[in-house]
């Protein structure tokens, strides 16, 4: 038995883009990504990045919706690409998902109770009506809802926040080890977001880890334990959320943290930033640091090879930037350091 719940090793996902005239080119969605999630204690691991950074691709490969081009995803010592049907079923039970759109995941023709009944039936969670009702009530309680208030309702009768909490309750009912939450709060109103984040914290107390995928650094800052910030498929910086956001090291992460609009009229953005033209942004895909065209501190060596992760600041805080090559100690094998 492994100490690790989930181990992602050198995960790479390439998509082939076919252009007119039969020329195809490969787009790297995720490149040599490594992540370890320990069995205990449960933690909330944030994967953050802009659109196109590979964060949703990561969610899809972890959930088994798409296969890696190379690399491995190892769950509890078992590589999921070689798992048999039975192991796969167990994996699907222990790794649950909550998606972005709390409107699209429901079938509008069924009452909310259908969501729970279907899953009880599929995984044979309870026998008899009393046991089923108790199980549902128990799951709803942890997300702060009551069965008599929601079960007989149709999805359109509930708020986005309530719907998303029901999805969390559904995931919790199966007692998974890991929940992959892909932008669970981005479509929920600001005043209701806190209730969903609170449910995530409570489920963590119950021993469920989260892979929290988001573009919103501020919610990650409020609840996350560890954070990985992706830039065009590679990790730019990772470490404890508070360290990374309070003291960002990678120039991209510095720009990102600095650009989050502060909800304080006295703290206005300082200085103006400009973006390079699009074609330049994509030029360095195969060689060197991908942030080179936008980087205010770029050096010649950045073009030669992609920078590995260097330790900065504290032990578990790493940034993939040559700025930290000399004075920092490169971690021996940068790709396989646990988060």
């Amino acid at each position, binding site marked *: 038995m492994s100490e690790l719940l989930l181990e992602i090793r050198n995960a790479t996902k390439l998509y082939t883009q076919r252009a007119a005239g039969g020329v195809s080119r490969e787009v790297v969605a995720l490149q040599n990504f490594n992540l370890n999630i320990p069995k205990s204690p449960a933690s909330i691991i944030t994967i953050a990045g802009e659109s196109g950074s590979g964060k949703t691709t990561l969610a899809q490969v972890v959930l088994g919706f798409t296969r890696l081009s190379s690399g491995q995803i190892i769950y509890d010592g078992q590589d999921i690409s070689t798992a048999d049907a039975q192991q796969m079923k167990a994996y699907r039970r222990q790794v649950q998902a909550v998606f972005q759109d709390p409107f699209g995941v429901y079938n509008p023709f069924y009452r909310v109770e259908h969501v729970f009944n279907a899953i009880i039936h599929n995984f044979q969670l309870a026998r008899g009506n009393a046991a089923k009702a108790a199980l549902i009530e128990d799951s709803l309680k942890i997300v702060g809802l009551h069965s008599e208030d929601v079960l007989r309702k149709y999805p359109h009768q509930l708020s986005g926040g309530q719907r998303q909490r029901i999805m969390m309750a559904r995931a919790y009912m199966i007692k998974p080890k890991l929940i992959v939450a892909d932008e669970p709060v981005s479509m929920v109103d600001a005043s209701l977001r806190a*209730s969903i984040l609170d449910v995530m914290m409570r489920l963590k107390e119950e021993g469920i880890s989260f892979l929290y995928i988001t573009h919103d650094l501020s919610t990650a800052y409020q609840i996350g334990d560890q954070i990985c910030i992706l830039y065009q498929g590679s990790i730019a910086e990772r470490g404890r959320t508070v360290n990374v956001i309070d003291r960002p090291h990678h120039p991209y992460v510095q720009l990102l943290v600095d650009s989050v609009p502060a909800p304080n009229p006295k703290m206005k953005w300082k200085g103006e930033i400009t973006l390079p033209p699009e074609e330049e942004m994509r030029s360095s895909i195969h060689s060197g640091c991908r942030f080179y065209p936008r980087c205010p501190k770029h050096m010649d060596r950045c073009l030669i090879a992609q920078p590995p992760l260097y330790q900065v600041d504290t032990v578990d805080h790493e940034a993939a930037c040559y700025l930290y090559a000399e004075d920092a100690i490169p971690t021996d094998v940068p790709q396989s350091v646990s988060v």
Partner: protein
Amino acid sequence: MTNADIHSDAHAPILKVRNLCVYYETPKGDVLAVDGIDFDLYEGETLGLVGESGSGKSTAAMGILQLVVQPGRIAAGEVILEDRNLIGLSENELRNIRWIKLALIPQGAMNSLNPTMTVGAQIKDVIVAHEGRQLRGDLKARILEMLSTVGLPGRVYELYPHELSGGMKQRVCIAMAIALNPRVIIADESTSALDVVVQRVVAQTLLKVKQMLGVSMIMIGHDMGLMAQMADRVAVMYAGKIVEIAPVAELFADPKHPYSQILIESVPSLQERKPLKIMEGITHDPRNPPPGCIFQLRCPFVMGQCRVDPPPMRASKTGHLVACHLYEVSEDGELVNVRVAARDT
């Protein structure tokens, strides 16, 4: 004291909205999407309009632009732009106001561009439709200048929308909005759905354009962080009504309405890790609002009076307006919390 008196010493409002009501017809009765809102927009200011989805922000914008479509209708009210009431004007008269005086940067601006036309041709269309035919060379020079105003390279002129990134498309829409030098721009969620860094670039473009042209702007959105960065004053909407209007610094430092307080407390911050503030999401049926205050079902301070009388808008001398029974205007023009005052005496 009415809304207009407060700023009488300052510059005059360019846009006045009075008792605007926009209702959507449904088989079970009208949905009161915008239910009697009043506000002024002053020369050169940016007024933020915030509220959760369904609070009526976008419908209010459509009401101001006279773009409400069936099953919606403008049930009552006045929209006065430079002393002219837009409500009741004919389509032809409106044509001379839209774009020329009142421009919109639509929600999801990236999808509002025509995919079959180049950027240059689309902007040209807007100008020719309103100003008539003109010399091709002049027109192109003017469009290139507009593109550079919003920070886009000249080659964008020849490109189709699908060749641009989201942030670039958004800036093309800003360029189109300023093409005819309007007096008022309404930006509906103009930077949502963009990455944080790109959002900042687009937001800063908007600020720059606003300062350069001295145009007034209504900025609709739900991101309080962005409001703090961009707006001069902020109006908070809840369930079709404006519950509070205040200068941005005052709203963030001292929100008065219980809903504004919750809204501002629930903004996650990168400065401090604080406990989550949870609020229940029960709202009334928008077809049938309860008598009295519209926020009574969610309000932590609800009183007997709130269930009977709708609270009037009360204004402080600094131009802080709030519709809540908790506040009275004192003799020196401050908003005083009656409950706190009663406890202290």
